């Protein structure tokens, strides 16, 4: 007779399916970075478009990249893509209207 530590501990009948932990119960565990960066990116790209500030548009591009890098795989890619496109369009519009190079703030 096999002793206990030689016995197979696996039990096919005790299998439980994986349930992804719901984020409503633990809002603190979620990383808010991608959402903040997304919002920031949109704000900066709107600023860049409206006020025709080149550096705003560039920062918006960076924000959307950072948001993409930190995003969860379950997140909607459409949102990522739309913020990315918005920031690229902000950069392009700023340069079409004013082809001068950006001057450093110092």
């Amino acid at each position: 007779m096999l002793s206990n530590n030689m016995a197979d501990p696996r039990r096919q009948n005790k299998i439980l399916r994986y349930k992804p932990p719901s984020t409503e119960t633990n809002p603190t565990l979620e990383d808010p970075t991608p959402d903040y960066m997304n919002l920031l990116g949109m704000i900066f790209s709107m600023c860049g478009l409206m006020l025709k500030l080149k550096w705003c548009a560039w920062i918006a591009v960076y924000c959307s990249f950072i948001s993409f890098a930190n995003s969860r795989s379950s997140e909607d890619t459409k949102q990522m893509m739309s913020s990315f496109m918005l920031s690229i369009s902000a950069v392009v519009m700023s340069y079409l209207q004013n082809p001068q190079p950006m001057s450093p703030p110092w």
Partner: protein
Amino acid sequence: MYGAYSFWVLVLMLNSLLPEGRYNDDFDDGEDLADFDDNDFAEFEDMTDDSAAEAETAPPPRASPSLQPDEDEDEDEATVELEDGQDGFEDPDTQDQDIYSKYDQEEFEGIGDMEKTGQSMKDPLIIHTVPAHLQNSWESYYMEILMVTGLLAYIMNYIIGKNKNSRLAQAWFNSHRELLESNFALVGDDGTSKEAVSTGKLNQENEHIYNLWCSGRVCCEGMLIQLKFLKRQDLLNVLARMMRPACDQVQVKVTLNDEDMDTFVFAVGTKKAMARLQKEMQDLSEFCGDKPKSGAKYGLPESLAILSEMGEVTDGVMDNKMVHYITNHADKIESIHFSDQFSGPKVMQEEGQPLKLPETKKTLLFTFNVPGMGNTSPKDMDALLPLMNMVIYSIDKVKKLRLNREGKQKADKNRARVEENFLKQTHAQRQEAAQTRREEKKRAEKERIMNEEDPERQRRLEEAAQRREQKKIEKKQMKMKQIKVKAM
């Protein structure tokens, strides 16, 4: 919502395209100047400013022939030195005029040299640099080039970081696969497939977080392993980590059935982790009120501390094998938390206390640090294998660990105490909630009576309600009387 955003953006972009772009107006003045003056030199008048630079660098070779006023020859340059007393001629260099008026009547040979030296001494040559936006060179766009380089660096780092994390995860899984497959019937599940079949793969939640769900074993419901790597794919995070080093973590959460564990709360880990957990975790703060004890008393290294509900629990958990495991791998252990009242970290609610006790689950939580402090290589993952052995051993051990009668009584008392405290704290709120519910019921009752069509039934229901009210009032009065009697 974002559809509306993009629509407005398009509208605004079209609006901003309509007005003309601003161009440099610097050179446009030349067109209109011909109208200003009928003078012969009208065309050349304003060119004095722009080509003053050219004119001033060129005077030495032209000094001698220019003495004779000869407008036809020198059409290209607004020769300041030529005209003397011409109308409408803007002459910024009146000095030059004086010099030449002096030399007009004199000999001309050899004067060129004198003029040359005189000029170089009296008029320092101001060579204006062409403003940056008028240059057509790539160098003036250096800020843009810098930005694009930064973006490329970010993308490169993203690719490299993602690959490194993926390799580390795979290395971990490869070294642990055998152990897990021999212990669990289901290794790897993402919850989406119809049948409970092992996927044999990690779930990728993020570029830096990987999950693995194992289930189908005696003594436990299931085990969730989370590989929480550093955010190597985010350049900002990489730079922040240069200031503040951190390490990859492996978190193992074993959920147990009710019969698999007796009632106790216990934790062991680094001093810092214990202090933090005692503040953050709901169950540790309620059941383990004392400060963390040093692990040295039980044969553990000094760096580790113990939080326990009662001494008997610590003695039960810290048997020789466990002490052996922990001592050998103390550098990799961040925290080990066994609890039958586990409900996660304390939840901060805005409306004061929650009305119900949070749901608890019997859980074993292990947090391990991957050696290497950020600079891990796939080989380091093998070092975590003994820790997984410890996890399996703990599962079996906890199943066998039973408190004696005294311990059980203490544990039950503790739990009753915690529940009572909670009820007391929320008493006021629960009363309010009960009051509102009673009022709701009354209102519903009244509405029902009102809506009743048959007047006969209406009357009867009203009478019934009145009788009930009367009874309640009488009961209350009786109670008050009883209390008064008792007080006396």
